[in-house]
């Protein structure tokens, strides 16, 4: 049986540990105890380590990630920075530690951020500190600079480790899938990973799709985007940043999990788990995305609205794999907007999400597509409300009427009562109209 190969803090390592051992457990049994388990659900960030690939640095939650997923990758942990690293010094000297339990994870998130840049809050969205109130952490980060280092990336070939399969091509993956309909299909593992991290399961068979060539990357073309099923959210977000047609999605996608989650989680996974609160799904619905599925019987292209069947149910057959999603660009002149309501701005699951694509003709709405998450057993279009908007100006009155036309029976749970979700969805529709009508004003508290 092949060994898992990892470049750990710059040194090549092989391990015979079970491939479904979490990276965090493995690091800690190897004596690298800087990364901590704070929650085992990818939310607190105390386990943050960084995947290095050349000049790129992607923070991940070591608790959610299993060894098989990082085969061939270069991992850096807090021990790989050392006591004299400027980022470590900045935190220590800036009074940015109190109990210190979250600190190694925060240093690693910050160290990755010194390379990627951007909003420091976005860099910290996946890290919780219960002691400091964050102010000294943000100040320490402001004093940090990129150390200029780079690391060898990805070298080892995909392989098989016992019952953990890491196919390199779609052909191999399809054969594996067809032969093992009971196997766990694993991509980023930000949802399924909980079965390893919290439930301490070791599935009998796992087919990990991260290396499948045909599932990689986000390709932008005239029609829109083709998002590989194994492309992490981070790559999708990057593609949206670089394409003006999709930039309205950027603030919304920046609230999908944290940087750690977006480094691992995939659009394919969001479709695969078909959660009613998967934040990618309303985007796909509002733009009439098409899901490409493949099996030994051939390839079929399923409109996303037909793909999502119900609560965590989708149209994927037992022998099928999601290969990619085709996401059409909004037509020129259309308003693409995405609203997310959650208890906390960052790293929180939506109570309600709304993605709208509205086309205009001569100042009135000619076509409206409204998709909502958190309002039903699955992410859904609001067809009745769409009809209300057509043929009139997109103003507060139209938004209110559309809100009255929402036909949903939302969930009633810890993220919000059904009544609040309805009211809030109406509020998000009005906010959409406000964005359109008054671009001079801030539309949200975070604008």
């Amino acid at each position, binding site marked *: 049986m092949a060994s898992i190969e990892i470049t750990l803090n710059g040194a090549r390592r092989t391990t015979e540990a079970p491939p479904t051992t979490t990276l965090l457990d493995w690091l800690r049994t190897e004596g690298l105890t800087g990364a901590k388990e704070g929650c085992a659900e990818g939310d607190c960030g105390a386990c943050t380590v960084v995947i290095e690939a050349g000049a790129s640095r992607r923070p991940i939650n070591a608790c959610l990630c299993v060894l098989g997923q990082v085969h061939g990758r270069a991992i850096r942990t807090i021990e790989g920075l050392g006591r004299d690293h400027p980022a470590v010094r900045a935190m220590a000297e800036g009074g940015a530690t109190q109990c210190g339990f979250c*600190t190694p994870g925060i240093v690693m998130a910050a160290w990755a951020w010194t390379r990627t840049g951007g909003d420091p809050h976005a860099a910290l969205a996946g890290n919780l500190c219960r002691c400091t109130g964050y102010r000294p952490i943000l100040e320490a980060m402001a004093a940090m600079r990129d150390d200029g280092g780079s690391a060898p990336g990805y070298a080892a070939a995909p392989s098989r480790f016992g019952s953990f399969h890491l196919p390199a091509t779609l052909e191999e993956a399809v054969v594996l899938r067809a032969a093992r309909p009971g196997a766990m299909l694993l991509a980023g593992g930000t949802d399924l990973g909980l079965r390893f991290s919290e439930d301490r399961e070791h599935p009998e068979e796992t087919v990990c799709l991260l290396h499948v060539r045909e599932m990689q990357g986000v390709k932008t073309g005239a029609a829109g985007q083709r998002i590989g099923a194994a492309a992490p959210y981070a790559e999708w977000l990057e593609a949206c940043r670089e394409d003006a047609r999709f930039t309205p999605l950027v603030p919304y996608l920046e609230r999908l999990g944290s940087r750690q989650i977006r480094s691992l989680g995939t659009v394919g996974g969001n479709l695969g788990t078909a959660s009613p609160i998967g934040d990618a799904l309303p985007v796909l619905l509002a733009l009439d995305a098409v899901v490409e599925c493949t099996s030994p019987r051939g390839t079929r292209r399923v409109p996303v609205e037909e793909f999502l069947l119900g609560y965590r149910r989708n149209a994927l057959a037992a022998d099928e794999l999601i290969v990619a999603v085709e996401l059409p660009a909004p037509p020129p002149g259309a308003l693409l907007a995405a609203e997310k309501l959650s208890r906390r701005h960052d790293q929180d699951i939506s109570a309600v999400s709304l993605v709208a694509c509205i086309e205009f003709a001569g100042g009135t709405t000619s076509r409206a597509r409204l998709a909502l998450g958190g309002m039903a057993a699955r992410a859904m279009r609001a067809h009745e409300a769409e009809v209300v908007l057509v043929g009139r100006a997109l103003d507060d009155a139209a938004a209110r009427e559309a809100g009255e036309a929402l036909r949903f029976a939302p969930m009633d749970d810890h993220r919000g009562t059904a009544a609040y979700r309805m009211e809030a969805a109406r509020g998000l529709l009005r906010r959409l109209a406000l964005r359109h009508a008054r671009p001079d004003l801030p539309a949200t508290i975070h604008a």
Partner: protein
Amino acid sequence: MNTAIVGHALRHDSALLHASGGARFLDDLPEPAGTWHAALALSPVAHGRLLGLDLPEGVRAILPADIPGENDIAPIGQGEVLLVENLIEHHGQPLALLVAPTRDAALRAAAATRAHIEALPPILSIEAALEAGTFLVLPQIIAEGDVEAALAAAPHRLAGEFRAGGQEHFYLEGQIALAIPGEEDEMLVHSSTQHPTEVQHVVSRVLGVPFHRVTVQCRRLGGGFGGKESNASSVAAAAALAARVTGRPVKLRLPRRSDMAATGKRHPFLYRWQAGFDEMGRLLALDAILAADGGHSLDMSGGVVFRALTHALNCYGAPALRISACAVKTNHVSNTAFRGFGGPQGALLMEDVLHQAAAQLGHDVEALRLRNLADRTPYGQALEPALTRRVLAEAKADAEWDRRRADAASFNATHPTLRRGVGAFCCAFGIAFGIPHLNQAGALVHVYTDGSIRLAHGGTEMGQGLFIKVAQVVAEVFGVPVETVGLAPTSTAEIPNTSATAASTGSDLNGWAAHAAAVAVRDRMAEVAARHFGCPPEGLRFEEGHILPPGGNAGMRFGELAKLCWRERVSLSATGFYRTPDIHWDAERMRGEPFFYFAYGAAVAEVLLDTLTGEHRCLSAHLVQDCGRSLNPAIDLGQIEGAFVQGLGWLTSEELWWDHEGRQRTLGPSTYKIPGSRDVPPVLRARLLEGSEARDGALFRSKAVGEPPLLLATAVVNALRDATAVASLDLPATPERVHAALRHR
């Protein structure tokens, strides 16, 4: 008073270890050979009779019958079981302990354990418990004057009712203990605890051995906040029980979900009040009930109720009043200490009263605040209203109160959906344990012959900077650099019979005890030096690592003197002891002076609110906290900011949610939302009150800081009242609650 080390902004002694990953928390310690792991099987229901358990094969299951001592983990009362024998009283209550060679195996066994339960109807709200009359702490009443007559005679009579939710501690390091059996009945317990002595007592009780058989040790906690005061004991007792039964070292580290289900939280409160006011908005009479949800067992609810009661008037007063506080019994997890210990809940009362009075009588709430300041508490302890006025005025000046209010008003006049609001708050927080006999501490100081010093005291380091502060005190006494002082883990073997590190008293108590120990050693050393130099000991100075005789400059190094003391056979080791003077309480009359002093603080906060969704965020906060003459301004600033943000979470975003059957559904950070970095106001200006000095007898004239600034987050609620124009808000003020309040105003 000039100090060389005390009062300096030294950083946390472990800062570099924290940041480099080198700080060892309990789970990072190398495990002794043969260590097994334990996991708890928890109740899936809130209330019921346990009829039996289906236990998985191949692991060691530990049940109540395996307990050699008592099945009782109560910190104060008695009869709080470690493992359910018959009656299940909350969702997440431990039913069995599963022990296996690996943690995974233990956790899987716990998950596979099936309980046969005859379900009983649970009591899940304070209202239902009040109706049923199930009390854990009977109403405690502070009264003055004839409140009925005063209410009847008041020109304006108001009434209100509101609620404040609980709060999960969410220490980043979950509960954990490692128990290592020794010879005979000995047990060494490494515990992440704020109260090693209580862990010692509870482990002893469960194992049925004398206290001297049990040693409890703790170097550092990854956060405590009160959640590892009594709650650490049951985890440690379970580990020790498993170690006793198996004869092996056993580690018990609770997964986050179990931790959040099985351990207590901040007490939720229900408030009902009636008040009488005059035309000017002066409070004439107040009749209030504060009912805490104690959960299923007593734990420390008595103390929490006491502090809520003694802080219910905050810094305000009324000529006639009756304040009644109690804790009811419900089928929730047993609530426990949480930073502020009922004080923050108590202080919410007067904010509701004053804001409703302002709204209904047409006054500015800030005018009512000043008009109702008191110079003594309803139980007879003196307050310093001048200091309250000063911190409030300084916070308002820092925040540019008038300009900020005007800016908010003009913003609100132009924006169709967003609203800004500005609010203030001030408070007086009493410092000392509410139970007088807990206000004692011990310390042990050794000086070695190389001049290095080892410091042990009974306080625990949970990130609050206690160790560096106490080390500063000892370094100050000896006139040596603080690095000379080596910090020992907290251990019941070195310092016996300690109190919890709690109630903000860590530095006051342990600092004084260490001071006493250091002075005892220094005095002996001075005698030796005096003989050596041929001068009186009083004339010697201990400075910068040297001992200097009067006049001359031919001193000797501290280490040289230590060696000389050894050669002269003088002891270089001493214990120190401290008890807080002057405090007393008459429980019959409900009068006394239970606090050594008060810490004063004030805050101004500004919020921005979206009326479409109820979402809001804090835009700015200006905080002024009275720390007296701070022992370490850098550490204190960190406490102020951190406490404020923790209070912000409690009051605005952190919501514990139970389903209709009483199952807690917020069992991890994915569902329970503590503040993240973006939730901290972009303008956060916290500072220590300048030129302040604590009373005579306070440690270097400093004041405690751990809990008081948590209350300052109440200013954010007041800003939300301003932004919504709703005087009374149920808390936490989540977007949903704020949205509902807007609709119903």
